[in-house]
């Protein structure tokens, strides 16, 4: 038995049966689709800064509907004055989150990135009008579940390539095994 097989069993993915594997796959793809939808409406080049709409409007809620004072200061002093760069960072982050979680490649790393991103969104818009703060708790927890389940090993590229990476002595293969 390889080390890779042993660690997969430790996560219960092999012993859990079809239902567990199907649910694990569904959680990963479902979370990926949430991030893909999120990337969809961040429209460059201004990201709504010129019209006070879109990403700019939602980011501005961190100042007008404060959730956590240090975060409000960070958004007011650093994010809003450099909004175009911030917009691109958000668009590329969420697009990459959607892409890698959809593929199931380096899944555990990207799930942690998702936790960080969802936390930032929660700190920004939880107190905004018509927002339910629990939504972002759920998104954080869903990304944590993808991390905990190592969900890319079920129906994902991690599951296909981990045996290949296990046979390789290269540094990249070692890192990819750690983050999958």
């Amino acid at each position, binding site marked *: 038995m390889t080390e890779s097989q042993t660690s997969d069993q430790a996560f219960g993915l092999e012993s859990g049966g079809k239902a567990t594997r199907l649910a694990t796959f569904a959680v990963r793809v479902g979370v990926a*689709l949430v991030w*893909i939808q999120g*990337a969809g409406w961040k429209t460059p080049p201004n990201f709504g800064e010129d019209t006070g709409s879109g990403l700019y409007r939602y980011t501005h809620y961190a100042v007008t509907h404060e959730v956590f004072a240090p975060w409000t200061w960070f958004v007011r002093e650093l994010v809003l004055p450099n909004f175009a760069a911030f917009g691109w960072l958000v668009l590329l982050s969420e*697009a990459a989150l959607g892409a890698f979680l959809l593929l199931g490649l380096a899944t555990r790393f990207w799930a942690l990135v998702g936790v960080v991103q969802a936390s930032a969104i929660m700190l920004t818009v939880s107190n905004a009008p018509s927002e339910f703060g629990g939504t972002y708790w759920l998104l954080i927890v869903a990304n944590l579940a993808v991390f905990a389940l190592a969900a890319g090993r079920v129906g994902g590229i991690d599951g296909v390539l981990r045996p290949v990476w296990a*046979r390789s002595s290269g540094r990249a293969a070692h890192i990819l095994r750690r983050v999958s």
Partner: protein
Amino acid sequence: MTRLRRAEAAVAAVGIVIGICGLVVARNLEFTAATGGVLFERSDDMIWGKLFQFSPLGAIVTIALGALALLGAWAGRRALVFMAAGGFALCAVQVIAQFGREDNVFGVRGGNLSLFLALAVGLLVLALADVGNSAAVEGSTA
């Protein structure tokens, strides 16, 4: 067909299926419409309730590149898979360069950046692993 090639075929099939769905929703639009037809549009028109968006041209390019990758996976021609991965990478660059502008000839939105990135990276890493695997097999039989 090896496990790696089956995975390449599966990634290619995702591109083809989404491209065909895109072509169906964009069938009545101009060939290079800047605002494409939306897949899975929600009735309440919330800005985040949408996934992918295509003009007929964007959908056809997605289908063609997916078909190229599928052919490469099926025939064991890695060069075709690499070409398809490169094509999808260029599509991702197109999204970055033209999304939100009037010359958005593929009619895409940000979600398409995820899709094209997934197809490009997925095909690339699988084809590279296939190259490494073949080299290892040749090395062990030499």
